[in-house]
């Protein structure tokens, strides 16, 4: 897949994610975060399971063959959810969102640069740093525009 198409798909996934968050936010308000998350995860697991049964080709390795630490991804997601539930009412949504993004991008750069967790090592280049700076400034603008509106 060419890089541009891949990038477009990822951007689209970001848009899908924010639609999902909007729907789940409403859901969480009425039934509580635990139940709304469980519902999302169960529907996600069941629909992925169906897709696997009918469309996934066979692979040499299964989930049971890989080292166990490779299966711990979901734990980070659940811990993230719990931290946000506790912290957002205290620090505010805007600050929490920016803090998450800082952690996300910082850790992302570290994993990329050193090739941790079995990822291909991608050295920190000038254009990657510039991309980060652009995003950082964009966040500042988003934050300022929201303060004016509020």
């Amino acid at each position, binding site marked *: 897949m060419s890089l541009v198409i891949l*990038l477009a798909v990822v951007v689209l996934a970001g848009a899908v994610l924010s639609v999902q*968050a909007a*729907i789940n936010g409403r859901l969480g308000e009425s039934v509580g975060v635990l139940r709304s*998350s469980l519902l999302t995860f169960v529907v996600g697991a069941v*629909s992925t399971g169906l897709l696997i049964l009918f469309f996934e080709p066979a692979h040499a390795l299964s989930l049971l063959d890989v080292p166990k630490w490779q299966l711990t*991804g979901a734990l980070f997601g659940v811990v993230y959810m719990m931290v946000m539930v506790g912290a957002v009412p205290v620090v505010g949504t805007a600050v*929490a969102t920016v803090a998450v993004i800082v952690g996300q991008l910082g850790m992302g750069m570290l994993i*990329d640069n050193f090739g941790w967790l079995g990822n291909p090592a991608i050295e920190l280049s000038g254009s990657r740093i510039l991309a980060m700076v652009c995003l950082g400034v964009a966040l500042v603008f988003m*934050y300022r525009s929201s303060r004016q509106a509020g």
Partner: protein
Amino acid sequence: MQTLDEVAVAAPVKKAGLRLLLLPLVILAGMGLSVEAGLLGPLGVQVGHLWATLSIFGVGSAILFLLLLFAGPQKGPALTDLPRWQLIGGFLGPMYVVVLTLATPHIGIAMTMIAILSGQVGKSVLIDHFGWFGATRKKVNAERWLALGLIVVALVLIARG
């Protein structure tokens, strides 16, 4: 899975001491999201993208089920009483995770995250401006257009490597 839309509903909150204590925790939680993406990419290459996605939703479901069981009775209506459209979120989550496992081996985790954030900002700005999906048309101020422009520049920088 978090979204940037939340920046747009900023509410001032007090309790300065607790805030400073919690902030590093929130940053750590954000770092966890990248670790999750970092685990997903190589796993997807080895066992298949859908299987990697199932591992996330399967393990997540199991943990949340146990948490819910021990958390005791929950407030609010039963899940079966909810409007059906509110259940769509469950189908959108896997799309996002599959794309994560597809993209990270090619463009790396940090750049994948930037592209995801771009989609979030773009979605909120364009929906407000054009009033798509039945949203009320709102005037998008210059600062948010600037933010969107900067994000496009970031994407071009990633695409050029």
